């Protein structure tokens, strides 16, 4: 079990209260390690990964990225699904991505579906939802301004079975 403490600088309870648990992630196309028989036209060296701020959101059933982030990374579409949020119900795109945690030794998520949705403000471009949180032990200490993620091992991680994440 590895424990990762946030924020990297001195904790500030007011900052955590105001903005929530945020950290930096890198989003890119899905990482394909499986040996494939057909040639893959995208070469690993040309794959684009973009660093962006993310907010941990226990109220999100699925991880969400803004349309701008999805466009910047060039994530491909695999489905449409229905997303219910404060502004109403929308039909949104489901894209496939990988997510890395550059400052932390959290396991890379090699294949995950992310939903495309506008997010308020510019403080974060990604909501880390319960699909990813199902992998971690999240501790939130509002009194000290610290929060942490415990992860059991560094095994690579792919999309979990559906059914419990709505």
């Amino acid at each position, binding site marked *: 079990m590895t424990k990762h403490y946030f924020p990297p600088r001195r904790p500030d309870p007011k900052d955590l209260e105001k903005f929530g648990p945020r950290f930096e992630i890198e989003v890119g*196309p*899905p990482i*394909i390690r*499986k040996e*494939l*028989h*057909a*040639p*893959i*036209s*995208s070469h690993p060296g040309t794959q684009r990964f973009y660093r962006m701020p993310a907010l941990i*959101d226990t*109220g*999100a*059933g*699925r991880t*969400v990225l*803004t*349309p*701008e982030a*999805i*466009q910047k990374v060039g*994530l*491909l*579409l*695999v*489905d*449409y*699904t*229905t*997303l*219910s*949020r*404060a502004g109403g*119900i*929308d*039909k*949104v*795109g489901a*894209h*496939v991505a990988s997510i890395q945690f550059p400052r932390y030794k959290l396991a890379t998520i090699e*294949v995950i*579906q992310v*939903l*495309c*949705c*506008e997010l308020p403000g510019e403080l974060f471009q990604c*909501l880390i*939802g319960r699909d990813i949180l199902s992998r971690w032990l999240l501790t939130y200490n509002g009194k000290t301004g610290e929060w942490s993620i415990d992860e059991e091992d560094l095994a690579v991680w*792919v*999309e979990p*079975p*559906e059914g419990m*994440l*709505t």
Partner: protein
Amino acid sequence: MGTAAPSRLTVETELYETHKAEWLQSHRDQFVVVKGTDLLGFFVEFHDAYYAGVEKYGINTDFLVKRVVPQEPVFVVF
């Protein structure tokens, strides 16, 4: 809907809707992979379905990976 322009996966989605009742009988809860009107197959896990799609169609093109369920899920973001 952001980058998911309505024209993307239209043919695939229509094909899914056309065959949904039939597939619910034989492949309920599995993931179907479709590109254009080409049905690649059904898979138990999403990542197996996605890998199969990449193997067949490549990594630089959209293809549909959809779970065959009677009612489409609604994901919630609070």
